[in-house]
């Protein structure tokens, strides 16, 4: 059974009278346990919207979302989920360890576990030399790193990452990639969104391509390449999106 699932998940943003923006349109996704699943798509295609709906930050206009068979507002489910928002910002006046400790307390972790994990995670994201620094003095990449550490504080079964490598240097990107693969080996499920095709190509078991809120393609990279007669991910990306745009153009063309 799928560990993350959406059924006809739809989100329309209502901006005043008669003005709506489509965030997501009838998306059916299934992420299996133990896989790394990548969501791709141009800017504004609905990736973040989809992740926010799954986590209960937004409420769907229609359709349903489930994580571990539970709805997005289930507190017990959230105990097992880690989340990294896009371009994360944290509490300016806390230090890295304080931030992690605060989040650990929200998961009701024991002090010993918390202490051990903070050390381990700071080591992992290489911020152990910045322990006394307030977060407002962090660089963009350091914030991304502390965010990654924060998303792992509860040793989650499911990790949801919105553009985890934006802002990281090449070494940080590689380290993150290795970390994700390592987590997968531990049996974790990872759902991520990304703009870095080469990275997605290297770590993801399956991918989904979003465009204007629609799910255009879903499957393994090889399967999709065959289906769309594409040579690589970039080719696939361009092909699916332009064919959708052409169809839409044809439709509106028919009407007028």
């Amino acid at each position, binding site marked *: 059974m799928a560990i993350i699932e959406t059924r006809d998940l739809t989100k329309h943003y209502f901006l005043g009278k008669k003005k709506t923006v489509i965030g997501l349109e009838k998306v059916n996704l299934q992420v299996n346990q133990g896989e790394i699943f990548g969501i791709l798509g141009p800017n504004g295609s609905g990736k973040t919207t989809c992740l926010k709906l799954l*986590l209960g930050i937004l409420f769907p206009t229609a359709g349903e979302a489930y994580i571990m068979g539970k709805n997005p507002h289930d*507190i017990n489910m959230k105990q097992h989920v880690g*989340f990294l*928002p896009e371009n994360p*910002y944290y*509490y*300016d*006046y806390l230090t890295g360890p304080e931030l992690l400790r605060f989040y650990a307390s*929200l*998961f009701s972790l024991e002090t010993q576990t918390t202490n051990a994990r903070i050390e381990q995670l700071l080591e992992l994201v290489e911020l152990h030399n910045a322990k006394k620094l307030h977060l407002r003095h962090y660089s963009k990449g350091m914030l991304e790193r502390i965010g990654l550490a924060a998303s792992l504080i509860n040793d989650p079964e499911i990790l949801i990452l919105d553009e985890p490598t934006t802002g990281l240097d090449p070494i940080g990107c590689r380290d993150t990639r290795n970390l994700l693969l390592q987590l997968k080996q531990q049996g974790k499920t990872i759902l991520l969104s990304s703009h870095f095709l080469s990275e997605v190509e290297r770590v993801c078991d399956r991918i989904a391509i979003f465009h204007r809120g629609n799910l255009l393609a879903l499957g393994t990279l090889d399967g999709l390449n065959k289906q769309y007669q594409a040579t690589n991910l970039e080719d696939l990306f361009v092909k699916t999106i332009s064919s959708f745009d052409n169809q839409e153009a044809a439709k509106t063309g028919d009407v007028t």
Partner: protein
Amino acid sequence: MKKMWLIGLNTFRESMRKKTLYIILIFALIVIGASKLFSFLTAEEELKMIKDVSFSAIEFFGALMAIFGSLYAISTEIERRTIYTLLTKPIRRSDFVLGKFFGVSMIVLINFILMTVFFIGLLFFKKSPPDLQVFKTLLLIFFELMLISGITLALGTFTSDAFNIICSFFLYIVGHLTSYGKELVERTENIIVRGLTDMLYTLVPNYENFNIRDKIVVGLNVSWGYVGWTILYGILYLCIALYIALYFFEKREI
């Protein structure tokens, strides 16, 4: 329940480190301190002056802290998107809202205590230790500040910052004038005007109920009964405000 505290403590810790509210506190202390500069008054008049100015300063600057503290408690979390990291943790939205209220209450309480200690120190310095009436006045001021925090917090769950500030100050001013307003209006014959003001009178919390300083300063006594009922009145309004906050925040998209 415990998570609510954790969020409250974090709010408190952040605002203590941010130090913005200290500016208001310093102003308040200056005003309280300045009240003793009127040395041309007789000793008795001077004491009245100190009490009057100090009560007013504690109330006014406390209200500023309550309003700005509550305003920023929720809106900065949303603006800086730190709220995403909280709502995706195993906490209820109600833990978040009530936690924020507790955090702001702690901030207001600490500042209130600092101002009060300064004021009472001043009274001792003037060889006039505070009596029970002074404490009654302070107690009611504190409950008024709690109510102001609750109302700004509630407004913050469904309005913009700018609108919230305007509304909060509007309520603060109107809430202190309702008694006068009602007296004025009672003389008019116009039913619509009376109906409207009656409605306003019941909807807007009557902050003036919490104001007993005019009586205390001139040496009148206020009964514990009045203090008790007013506190109850404050708690009732506060519960309504928090209920509104929870109701709107439960459905809010961020």
